């Protein structure tokens, strides 16, 4: 399987994540699109790890998953707190950061 197929697949997933981030207004969906972009990058790292036969890239993917898990916990806590304040997760309301 050429490495380019994996390049194009993860590029497509990354672009879909960017489109979702720009298109939607729900803060949780935007957060999920960021997770999608992280996963696209992880997929490409694993493909290169297979290509160069190097386990360091897979360790790097492992650490990126660890950081993503911590990020999701803190980010969802922030969204829940915002929801308690303004009773909405619409980013057009959240963009004032003050009420």
């Amino acid at each position, binding site marked *: *399987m050429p490495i380019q197929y994996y390049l194009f697949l993860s590029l497509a997933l990354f672009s879909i994540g960017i489109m979702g981030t720009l298109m939607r207004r729900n803060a949780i969906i935007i957060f999920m699109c960021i997770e999608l972009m992280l*996963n696209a990058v992880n*997929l490409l790292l694993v493909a290169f*790890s297979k290509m160069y036969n190097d386990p*360091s890239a*897979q*360790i790097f993917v492992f650490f990126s998953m660890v950081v993503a898990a911590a990020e999701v*916990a803190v980010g969802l806590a922030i969204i829940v707190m915002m929801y308690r304040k303004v009773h909405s997760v619409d980013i057009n309301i959240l963009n004032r950061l003050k009420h």
Partner: protein
Amino acid sequence: MNAYELIFWLLTVMAISCALGVILSRNPVSSVLFLIATFFAVSGHYILMNAQFLAIVNIIVYAGAIMVLFLFVIMLMNLNADTEPQKNRLVQLAGVVSGGILFLVILAALKSSTNNMLEQTATDIGLIKNLGKTLFTQFVLPFEIASVLFLSAMIGAVVLGKKGEEEPQTPKGA
């Protein structure tokens, strides 16, 4: 076309179509379910590249833990209605165009890059034994720092999610 390529294309189509479902579906709960399907497809790609440890970690951490967290938040906030306000058509079109332009630019830049083949021979660098040896010899300091990061994220999530004292009392049973 052998079985390997067949599985590759099947997983690729599944990943891309489910990723499109994430951003196109109106209901946030179905977005989460589409995202879980995307993660399963990516895990299938990991297994295809013989990275079994990462495939299992991807399913456990992403599809198991993170997505359940998302589902809990969506259902606790009662957002599983289709009444989400949409951006107007022009902004949506601008988002699609800019994402598509990024896709085309990187595609054109990478089209003539290296065309190394990923050989289908079974390598054993993705097995738990080898990855564990690498993790606990070469990368043991980042591993310990990651545990500190987890502790701080845990404390931060608890502090942020706690109800503040200045908020008005919610009625009983609400």
